[in-house]
């Protein structure tokens, strides 16, 4: 069951990279970055998953050696990663808007004043 998660995660990362490499539309490049990011989030969450575990939220009195919960560290990592992913999307879309203003196009093949 969890294997499917890993396969899906790496599939999403690969799909994101494929999108970035092959699509000439800047907005699609941004979408590719997001897809790769979702793949990483899925990977992180799957790593911390214990089948049958509860949410890792306890008070001191509740916590004992019989408590069985999923690993909280990857969840914290995932939250951070989601925030960073949102920043990437926001910032790159802002840059796309500026690029469209300056170059009049969002085709990557035409945005190449800096080369050589």
């Amino acid at each position, binding site marked *: 069951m969890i294997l499917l998660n890993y396969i899906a995660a790496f599939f999403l990362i690969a799909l994101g*990279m494929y999108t970035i490499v092959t699509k000439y539309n800047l907005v699609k490049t941004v979408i590719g*970055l997001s897809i790769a990011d979702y793949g*990483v989030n899925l990977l992180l969450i799957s790593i911390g998953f214990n089948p049958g575990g509860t949410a890792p939220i306890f008070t001191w009195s509740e916590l004992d050696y019989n408590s069985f919960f999923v690993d909280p560290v990857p969840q914290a990592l995932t939250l951070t990663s989601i925030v960073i992913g949102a920043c990437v999307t926001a*910032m790159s879309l802002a840059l796309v808007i500026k690029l469209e203003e300056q170059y009049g196009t969002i085709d990557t093949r035409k945005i*190449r004043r*800096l*080369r050589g």
Partner: protein
Amino acid sequence: MNLLGNVLSYQHFPIYAIMVLFMGSFLIAAFGENRRVRNILALLSITASLIFSLLLINPVILRGEIIGYWMGARSIAGGYAIGIALEVDALSLFFALLAACAIFVSGVYSIQYMSRDDNEKEYYTLYLLLCGGVMGMVLSGDLFNMFIMVEILTFAAVALTAFRNTARGAVEAAFKYLVVGCMGSTFILVGTAMLYAQTHTLNLAQLAQLVPGNMNTATKAAFALLFVGFGTKAFIVPFHPLAADAHGAAPASVSVIISGVLTKSGIYGIIRITYFLFQSMGLGTMQFLLVFIGSVSMFVCVTMALAQHDFKRLLAFHSISQIGYVLTAVGLCTALGLSAGLYHAINHTLFKGLLFLAAGAVLHETGTTDLNKLGGLARKMPHTTVLFLIGALSISGVPPFNGFASKWLIYQATYQKAVESGNIGFLLVTVIALITSVLTLASFVKVSHSVFFGQLPPELEKVKEVSWGMRFAMGIFALLCIVTGLFPNLVTTYLTEPAAAAAFSVQRYIEAMGFDGSAAVEILAGSFRYAGVWEPVSWLLVLCIALLAVTIAALAGRYDNVSLCRTAAGDSKYQLFYGGEEQSFSQLGGDDMFWGFKHNWRGYFSFMHRLHSGIVNDYALWAVADLALVMLFSLIVL
């Protein structure tokens, strides 16, 4: 009193050094409307950060301690690190000092340099975020924390690249940097996640304890992901086009940080994962990987630099060429090699910072960095010219400046490695390093000719020298360039050798955080001794005597002090058969020098020109291809 003593204990200094920068950034964002308040806040935080790093020299470098600091006193439970740690050994502190110095000088410079831009508040907010990210990354003892800091510095660097968003190509450069930089960050995060899945820890010391004994396919893949991820931060081949775009478009004070400090943090990441986490540097194949990438970066970037005609873009390519030297020396995995590489890292930060600041001074006064539009500025900006020449001589490796000392050590280290290992390939590396040095000198002859010497274009008649604040900042770098060149023994004894020794004592690194380091692989390092005697002070005398002789000869001979000015009506140089005699000199443009060399190598240059296509998809493809190759390589050899 006890509390105060506790707060001022040097154990806390690493977190203070990081914190003051972030605090400064947030305070400026909140209260930075007033220019004076903003400048004071920025100067206070960069000075405080510098002081805290300097105060750490005594315990960490001189007494050889390793500071292990657990945030919130959450340390180890059940044999696993549960808190976030900072771990400062001599290697971390070395890079932190480098960062703090460059941040300080560049901060002083930007107060004058950025005074004509609007949105200065945002500039300082982002600038201090970038600095805090670098500082946090090199002092961190936690892999995920390193990733966070890498993201912070990437974002701040991207935003600052696009800061002058009306400048030519700034937004384009920022977008390309963002796409490939984020791919690199994604690689680092996936690598971190895969290591966590195998070892259930993120602490660097504990990873160094657990990873080498438990190598499997996942950890090997994680190595490739981390290596390529940090490679994008160091801009080594194949990520060098982004460096050229980003350094070229960013304001000069930011270029200093991106090229002098951000690339170093990438190198730091690579040293951490190869020497510490995976302890794989003992393998000949791993040395080959680093030396190969380093040599290719060195050579490709210097030839790319020769073909440039924009001042800052040219400097950016040189920057990566010098990073190639550092990576090559680090990849040798000998004590001398690592020490030489770190020495070159210091020197690179100093002379490249100086050169970028000089380029910024030229841009500030003339409004352009196009080599074909500049010329003859030595008459108008004499101090900047002298400072630039010190930087140019340093980067070209002319004795007695600092570039020579470290390059000499790198030649010796590669040669010694070739002798010790009996591998002819390392001799080839020595030769490539020498050729690169010659080409560097050639392209700086071109820059100094077409910017500072030659004829003054009429439209630059009114150019003035830059303000004292900017000259002061450049002067600090120039002074440090000369000092580190004249006293190489002091630099190696007190900075690079402790840092190199720290890189070879993985066991101490693990045990400093309270883990069992007995299983750490000890790499035989060799000695720091090097053959050959190098007397920089006598070379300084030789240089002074030569300069004196030239001056006397020039004064004794008939010296026409004519003021040359390029006529607006076109240059008679181009009137091939019937012109040319009217003017005794004609300006040689940046593109014209070395035309014969470029003509002979036109196949290579046009191939390179086509390769650096400027299309972001190509660069992304290179990143993916690089990852695939490194992953294949590490799956086979690790």
